[in-house]
């Protein structure tokens, strides 16, 4: 490429950057963060104090009639840390039902935690770390 042509092209690329940034901002605002996007985590909401959190507990029923409770996040400990929390928070929330293939897949993971399991649910409660009120029950998702 001729040097002057290259310089002109590079200048045009530079001048297009503000428009591309505006386009990205528009997409994020209207649809959601796309991938790829030139972005870094904002943590905007963290300026407000933490009032409440939703806690998932995996309740496993065993053959002898007893139950065992553990964090639902233990189901995906072998998966990348950044994603296993999301899998629980979005995939095992009480507002959804598990289709048969997802239920069977999750059940197999329950069995790796507790081989003597006969049933399992993910129980969601609302906790308030700052005021330490009693946990409020939100709902349950049945795995088996």
């Amino acid at each position, binding site marked *: 490429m001729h040097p002057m042509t290259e*310089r002109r092209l*590079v*200048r045009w*690329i*530079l001048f297009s*950057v503000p428009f591309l*940034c505006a386009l990205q901002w528009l*997409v994020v605002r209207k*649809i*959601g*963060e*796309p*991938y*790829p*996007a*030139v*972005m*870094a*985590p*904002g*943590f*905007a*909401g*963290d*300026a*407000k*104090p*933490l009032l409440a*959190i939703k806690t998932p507990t995996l309740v496993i029923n065993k053959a002898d009639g007893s139950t065992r409770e553990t*964090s639902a*996040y233990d189901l995906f400990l*072998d*998966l*990348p*840390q*950044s*994603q296993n*929390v*999301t*899998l629980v*928070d*979005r*995939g095992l929330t009480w507002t*959804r039902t*598990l*289709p048969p*293939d*997802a239920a069977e*897949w999750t059940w197999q993971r329950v069995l790796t935690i507790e081989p003597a399991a006969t049933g399992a649910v993910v129980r969601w409660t609302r*906790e308030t*770390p*700052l005021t330490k009120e009693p946990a409020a029950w939100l709902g349950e998702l049945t795995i088996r």
Partner: protein
Amino acid sequence: MAGRINDQIDHWLFEEYRVDQADLSLYRKLYAVLAVALYFPHALWTAGIPAHFWNTPPSLTSLLDGPPPMWVLLILNALFLWFCFALYKGEDVPGASIGVGVTLLLLNNVYYSFGKIDHDILFPLTAICLAFSGWDGRSQQRPWCLAFLALIIGIAMFTAAWPKFAGGWLSLDSHAVQSTAQRYMVRPHRVIGTELAVEYTPTWLWEVHDWAAVLLEAGVIVAAYRLRWLRAILLVAMLFHMGVLITFGIAFAVNVVVYAAFFPLSRLWKPALACLPIAVVMSLTLCNWYGYRGFLWHTIVMLGGVMALGYLVRLTATTVRRR
């Protein structure tokens, strides 16, 4: 006036980021090695996840009903490895650079299609940005490639600074970093660093952290105007990443690798070797607390932080001695 602005723009694009090409070439090899070490194999775990968990961002994977089959991921990983190898050897560097960037973006797209995006976009974009920079060590150097990378880093950091500013991080009534630490205290993967920080950090220091985070992230795009300024702020950023790793267990190792593109690596390898044992010991300590899966990531962040600290201490000592 317009002429002066044009001259400034041309200087920034075509002269400001002119560096020693040997350093760029060294960085290419380092980048290729770390790309494999940090990412390969990548996203293979997604193949077995049921479609129920599929939750894509606006992206190519939105066209899919669920994770791609394993053979697709294996092919992408094989291509990624091949391009990294070609990049290291210096064969068809522009093509290999773009190949590394694009395969990594595709694999990351799958990886981040379950509801959460990890913000490591700078790493694949570095390879694409520097494709024609002359980092093969033979062809004509194009400083504008490094200038654009600096601009991209500045934009990315600014997208983190603006929500903080708009969300009230600079208000004296809010202590956002403290609030973040409290959130991390109740997360499933909380770390001892968070507990110590919450226990012992005074209120005024939390507020200093709030301001420092916003000013640092907003300042990168301004500092990108001069290579010297950018290097200075990136040194501070490396200290910041080290602090975030210790306090929250989050290792922005890819950012440290990207920042290294702007430093004279041929002059830094001896200090790096000197700092490496310290970084390894610190990393092992963290791994003992947080688990050993992130040893390489922790070590990279610690190495960047220790080198930055060492340089700033030396600079301070030299300045004081001169006075």
